């Protein structure tokens, strides 16, 4: 991270930047967009730098906390029904 005191504390394009950084994290941005934003903008703009880390943290938390496995007996029951279908 660059020296925070040298970063700007207001972003004139915050809405567009947020959309762009989400596209980058979603793997939907072009290489050029990605390079410009990640290498040039992020190091000099505090709000975008914070937004970036917040987006990453939310995604990590979602992955960690919002998944669950199918109950084993449900899996078995589905398999059994398909086998019966095959034999029918």
């Amino acid at each position: 991270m660059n020296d925070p005191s040298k970063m700007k504390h207001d972003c004139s394009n915050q809405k567009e930047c947020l959309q762009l950084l989400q596209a980058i994290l979603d793997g939907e941005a072009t290489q050029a967009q990605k390079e410009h934003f990640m290498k040039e903008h992020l190091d000099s703009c505090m709000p975008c730098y914070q937004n970036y880390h917040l987006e990453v943290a939310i995604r990590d938390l979602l992955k960690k906390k919002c998944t669950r496995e199918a109950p084993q007996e449900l899996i078995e029951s589905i398999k059994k029904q398909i086998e019966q279908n095959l034999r029918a």
Partner: protein
Amino acid sequence: MEEEIIKNNYTDAQKSRIFDQEFMPHINAMYNFAYRLTLDRDDAKDLLQDTYLKAYRFIDSFQEGTNAKAWLFRILKNSFINDYRKKSKEPAKVDYQEVETYYNSEDVDRQITPDLRVESLSNMIGDEISNALNALDVDFRTVIILCDLEGFKYEEMAKILDIPIGTVRSRLHRARNLLKEKLSEYAKSMGYKTA
């Protein structure tokens, strides 16, 4: 978004192999999707079971080598809309157009300032994020699940949801703003400074 449906004529052995190797590996992701849509364990079980039986019944229209996960998610989403949404505990059918117009208005963006901090998220070790996600309107919840949990591309999401790609993008953006809003409410109630 009509796609040409090529009918295959798989043998029983092929059907069985496709089912085991292409469909079953997604069962946990599918269960999670079913649960997040219905918000009810029993409904989620029924929805998952119905979806897998449908997938088997329509297996001849599945093209081997294409994205089985997206194909399955689309069936599950359609089953949910047709069979469960009506009877679920969701508030009476929202006029979606109205919701979308509201959330697309500039006002919402102005209200949503990034006052949530990474540090307050790291304190959310319980069900806060899960509750925040579940509290979103089902259409917003869905895009977050598909993108952030399941890693679908915008184009795949457009096909799963039968909506244009531009709508995927804007709905996702709104959904994330709303999720942050919920999370910052939690952060405030937990007593962490958010700004």
